[in-house]
């Protein structure tokens, strides 16, 4: 099992979740993100979950917890590229996550965080290409 790639882009950390995210992996994600935020004194965290097609209440809570931890460490978290089915599931579970910030694409998320992405629009994020598919 590999760790999650946490890619530093300027002041922002980019985390892309690939494949199924089961409970043990979700805990590891929380650890790697918070560690990376602290080590790099990041200002923002962008979590791309466009490849995640199934969630449970635990994952919903983990996302909210990562956002909470990062905020304590001085970084805002934006979740990007959530799929419709995932959003519906979370809402049906009663997890509307009002404290979690969301955006459609990584570029949008960067705008939310108030930083300019040093990447052009066309190659801005996996979410763009996957979403258009």
């Amino acid at each position, binding site marked *: 099992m590999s760790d999650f790639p946490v890619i530093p882009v300027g002041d922002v950390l980019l985390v892309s979740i690939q494949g199924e995210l089961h409970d043990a992996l979700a805990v590891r994600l929380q650890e790697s993100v918070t560690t990376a935020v602290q080590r790099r004194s990041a200002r923002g965290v962008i979590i791309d979950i466009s490849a995640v097609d199934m969630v449970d209440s635990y994952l919903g809570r983990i996302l909210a917890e990562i956002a909470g931890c990062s905020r304590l460490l001085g970084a805002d978290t934006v979740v990007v590229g959530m799929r*419709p089915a995932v959003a519906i599931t979370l809402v049906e579970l009663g997890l509307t996550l009002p404290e979690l910030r969301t955006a459609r694409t990584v570029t*949008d998320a960067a705008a939310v965080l108030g930083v300019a992405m040093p990447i052009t629009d066309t190659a801005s994020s996996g979410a763009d290409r996957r979403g258009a598919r």
Partner: protein
Amino acid sequence: MSDLDAAAPWSPQQSVADLLRQRREQIAQRWADLPLFRSVFTVTRDEAVEAAQSVADALVVVAASGRVDDIEASGFDSVRTQIGRMSAARSRAGLSVGRVAGEVAALKDAVVELLTAELAGAPVEHQHAAVLYAAELLSTLRLVAMQTMFNEGQELINRQRQQLMEVATPVIKLWHGVVAVPLIGTLDSARSQVVMENLLDAIVAQQARVAILDVTGVATVDTLVAQHLLKTVASARLMGAECIITGIRPAIAQTIVQLGIDLSDVATRSTLADALGYALDQGGLQVRRTDGRTVSAGESR
């Protein structure tokens, strides 16, 4: 011992089939006078007799096959459309399914009467067996009629539901990154689900930042509808799009407040135009007149 037994071993199956075949004309004449046939074939009596004969023919086939308790018996196939059309006509006339089934059951009397007369000289156990057999056959016919009516009703409902889904939920791209759904009519759970899924899919496909739910055409709002709207708004937000509800009419606004539904977390605008203006604003866009005149207050937003 009667002559019947001399030819072949007696069976209720053969006896009933023979009677239906031989007395087909007589039975059809009597059936044609019953409300089931009379009220459907109003133009000429011959039509009713003809229809009754075709039903009787089908019963002969079923009776001879011995599968009188099987509603799937192949003999019923030919009569299914006939019975279906008559039952549909009767239900349209305002009769309940139970009443129509009763009318179908009334066909039994003529058959049983003729059968009793026919077997007057036969042993008592033969009479009983034959009458029982005929009764079972006609009960199954009644079941066939009910099943046909039920299926037709179900088909109609499915067809209409499908039509409703199709006409009711277009997602319109208003601008780059701005999509809108005009909701019309009554929102139930199934429709709300379709609206929600369509809108969320459109948000992904169009990379929309703003999604507008226009409820101008929604007749009434109850707690359930409001619940669905709130769910849609929450899902869209999770996906990273802002959801705006527009076109809430004064009467509906009053209902929402009176029901105590909390829409304070949801962005609302009075018209679709306002919401579009807001969306453009958020995207850093501005509407400008090309003739240099100042934009009036009504146009600016």
